[in-house]
């Protein structure tokens, strides 16, 4: 190995040690920053409208679902909807490449829509 190469390796090794020593110094010397009204400013900036907590969120969803079901019972002909829905189911189903492709594409689209709606709702 040439002396030049050895010197380069020594230099790199030396720099690595210097870097570690530098960060070691900084770490041990890290100042504890005094709270210069940061807490006060943050608390004053928090949204006034209280975020919905997990329990409350579930409660809202359950109440909404119940009210929706009650409204549906009085305003819609449930029996007719059921019969109409059942009539949509085909008596026989032929499995073709086109059907499978349509099924997968439909599933993917629905999954994306559900994901997007979930992400939007969580923001």
């Amino acid at each position, binding site marked *: 190995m040439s002396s030049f190469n050895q010197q380069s390796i020594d*230099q*790199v090794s030396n*720099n*690595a040690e*210097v*870097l*570690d020593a*530098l*960060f070691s*110094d*900084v*770490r041990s*010397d*890290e*100042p*504890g*920053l*005094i*709270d*210069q009204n*940061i*807490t006060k*400013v*943050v*608390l004053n*900036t*928090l*949204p006034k409208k*209280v*975020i*919905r*907590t*997990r*329990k409350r969120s579930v409660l809202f969803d359950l109440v909404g679902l119940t009210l929706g079901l009650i409204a549906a019972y009085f305003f819609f002909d449930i029996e007719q909807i059921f019969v109409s829905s059942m009539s949509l189911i085909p008596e026989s189903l032929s499995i073709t490449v086109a059907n499978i492709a349509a099924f997968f594409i439909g599933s993917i689209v629905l999954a994306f829509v559900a994901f997007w709606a979930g992400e939007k709702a*969580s923001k």
Partner: protein
Amino acid sequence: MQQLDDTILIELAVNKNDQRAYGELVNRHQSNLRYSMRQLTDWNETLADDLVQDAFVQAFKQLHKFRNKAKFSSWLYRIGYNTFLQHVRKKQLITESIDDQPLAANDSLISNDANEDSDARSDLHQRVAKLLSQIEPERRSVLHLFLHRQHTQQEISDIMGIPLGSVKTHISRGRKALQSNLHAWQG
């Protein structure tokens, strides 16, 4: 309130909407986060504090999503880092990489002169921030977490939400870049 664990304070803030509990969390973690943000922003104290305030507000909005699998400080850092990234994207903070362009010897970041030793000591944190500022933001954050906060590579991957392989690459190349800069300084 000061005696309570982070987990309990979070529960109080989320389930009871106790803002005093959240205030205690802010008070407890503001120093570390502000220091980290200063290291990421080339020790721009005003900018760092603004980012920290934004991060704490964002954290409050998302507090119900926090899971105790991670430490609150790590989760908070991630929000702070994302806030910093958003700022960088908006303002296009100057982040010229030193990977391809080491600083010249006379642009020294760390003085080797004995006469300037006390100055270098007092400015140590700002000088390190300056050193880091020459590196692109994601790599800068990885290096800060690795070299300063001493997180493991896996922890950094979890905190920043980037693949482990990317963390390893950032550390390897980032260290070389920093060493190269030190090499330029040493002449």
